[in-house]
C-alpha cells in the first residue's frame, strides 16, 4: 500500500481535453508555495504522458501518477 500523500490543493480537470489540464495545472501550481502539493484529476487519456513531460520540463516533481476507474490522479510538488 502506498503511503498517503496529503495535498494542499485539488484541481479537477475531469472532462477537459488537451491542453486545458496542462494550462490549469500550470496556473494552479503558481498559486502554491514551494513544497506544497497539488492533486490534479483528469480524464483525458493523454494526461499521464503530458503530466510527466510537464513535470520534467518545469521541475515541479510528479510524486505519484495513479488511476481510479476512468480518472487519472496526479500529485505534483511545487519546486
Amino acid at each position, binding site marked *: 500500500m502506498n503511503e498517503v500523500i496529503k495535498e494542499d490543493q485539488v484541481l479537477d480537470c475531469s472532462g477537459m481535453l488537451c491542453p486545458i489540464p496542462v*494550462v490549469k495545472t*500550470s496556473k494552479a501550481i503558481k498559486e502554491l508555495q514551494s513544497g506544497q502539493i497539488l492533486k490534479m484529476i483528469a480524464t483525458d487519456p493523454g494526461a499521464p504522458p503530458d503530466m510527466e513531460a510537464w513535470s520534467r*520540463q518545469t521541475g515541479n516533481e510528479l510524486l505519484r501518477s495513479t488511476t481510479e476507474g476512468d480518472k487519472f490522479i496526479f500529485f505534483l510538488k511545487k519546486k
Partner: protein
Amino acid sequence: MSVWKTNDPETRKILYVQTHGEKDPERTATPFFLATAGAAMDNEVCIYFTMNGPQCVAKGNGDKIVIPRKGGNGKELKFFIDQALEIGVRLLVCQPSLDLHGYTMDDMIEGVEMIGGAAFNDMACDADAVIGF
C-alpha cells in the same frame, strides 16, 4: 536585440510557424493549442504567421473560422487564440504576408506583433525548437 524576451538560459524557446488560413480551417487550431501547452510548461513560445497564416489572426476571422469536427459541433478558432494569448504566447507576422492579403496591422487582432524576415531567421537560430505547419 532578439525578439525573444527571456534571458534565462533554463527557459526553452519554441517557435511555431503557421502557413495555413481560411481555406484550411482544420489546420488552424493545432498551432495555437500546441503553443498553449508549450507556454504552460514555462517555455517562451511564439507563433509566426506567414503565407496564409495571417488570416488566422485577422480581426473577425476568429469567429468566422470554425474548426470542423466529425458529427458537427465545430469550435471557433477564437477559443484557441484567446487561450494562447491568455497564457502569454506571442503572435508575430511579417509585412510581405500581410500585403499578400491586402492587410495592414490595423486588420490584425490586439496583441499581434510585426517582425521581419531577418528577425524571424534570428529567432529560429536562437530557438530550442522550430515547428512548422
